[in-house]
């Protein structure tokens, strides 16, 4: 979920581009299957965290481009801050 929203901060993307972006952002650690990725996309879409930006037909098949909403932007930033604070508990210099 975090990597999907992070990938979409760069602009609207379709499923395959989101998948590639997640792999790059996570340095290959996170590679959701297509079934898992679309499950996440549908739930994010239902909850208004992302939205369908436009639809295109490529090779005779429909392709949806998703974009992050303001709510999604706020959510992923809050999550990043939370993780940063949690990481600081371990990574700050000892005695600080």
């Amino acid at each position, binding site marked *: 979920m975090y990597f999907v929203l992070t990938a979409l901060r760069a602009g609207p993307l379709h499923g*395959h581009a989101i998948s590639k972006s997640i792999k790059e952002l996570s340095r290959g650690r996170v590679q959701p*299957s*297509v*079934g898992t990725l679309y*499950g996440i996309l549908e739930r994010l879409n239902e909850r208004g965290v992302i939205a369908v930006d436009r639809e295109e037909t490529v090779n005779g098949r429909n392709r949806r481009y998703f974009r992050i909403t303001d709510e999604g932007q706020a959510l992923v930033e809050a999550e990043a801050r939370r993780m940063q604070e949690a990481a600081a508990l371990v990574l700050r210099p000892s005695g600080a």
Partner: protein
Amino acid sequence: MTAPGDPLERRYRRLLLAYPRPYRRAHGDELLDVLLEDAAPGRRMPVLREAWGLLTGGLRSRVTHQATGSAWEDGLHLGVTAVAVANLAALLPYARELPLWTLLSASALLAILRGRLRTAFALTLLTAVKAVALASGRQWFDVTVLPVHPGGLSGRALFQDSDPFLVAAGYAIVLIGLVVLASLRRPARARSWWWWAAVVPVAWAGPAWMAEGTEHPISLSRMAVEAVALGLAVTGGYLARDHRWAMASGIYLLVVLGELAFHVQQLGRQHLAYAGILVLLTTAAAFVPLRQRRHCLD
């Protein structure tokens, strides 16, 4: 890009059948497009991780598609359906002796599955009157030689260890449920044809796991079907955070516990284990929708 009829495309299309039809129609090609773009050239078999992702994604999608509309109305309809399956299963081994009444009971189940509530009520009422008459040794509607011996599936006579009150209670739950649903004047959802697959295993008296001569024996096949159905109810409640499956499980459990309570003097450890499994699964179905959210998408 693959050619139409490519083995990999064909196999992925088959896996996409895990998704509900409306979703497949709207987005099946889109998922297929991503799967084929990711595939290595010349690959003929789906990647195992992708196959598993499609099966679990499809199951989750099916569950969430079911969890729409009023939970209690749908839960009541599901519960009524489950009890109607049990009522038909009770008559099925005696279909050769009671062809008309078994057919009527099957027609009642069909009407319930298709959401034809008024027709289902009339058919269930007719079957109920005859079943209670047979359980109490009365000859209503037509003459039946009693006791009614089974043609297969079971070795016991019809309602041998039951009681007219218990038989009436099973039908009454279906009838009351149908009256409540019909009074709402809203169309009931058509249910899956898979319900028919449960009828024979519930009717079948084997494989036997209780000692011969046990009063009110429960067959392993019936217990397996009930455990699988309630297990699915727990899964549905967990994934969709919805109580409809718990409600249906509770209605069915009421009928089972009523039967066991009637035979309380003859119950053994196996009966208690059986009841324990059903109570545990129903309780789990009631509580899993309340689980805490770990993040905004959970």
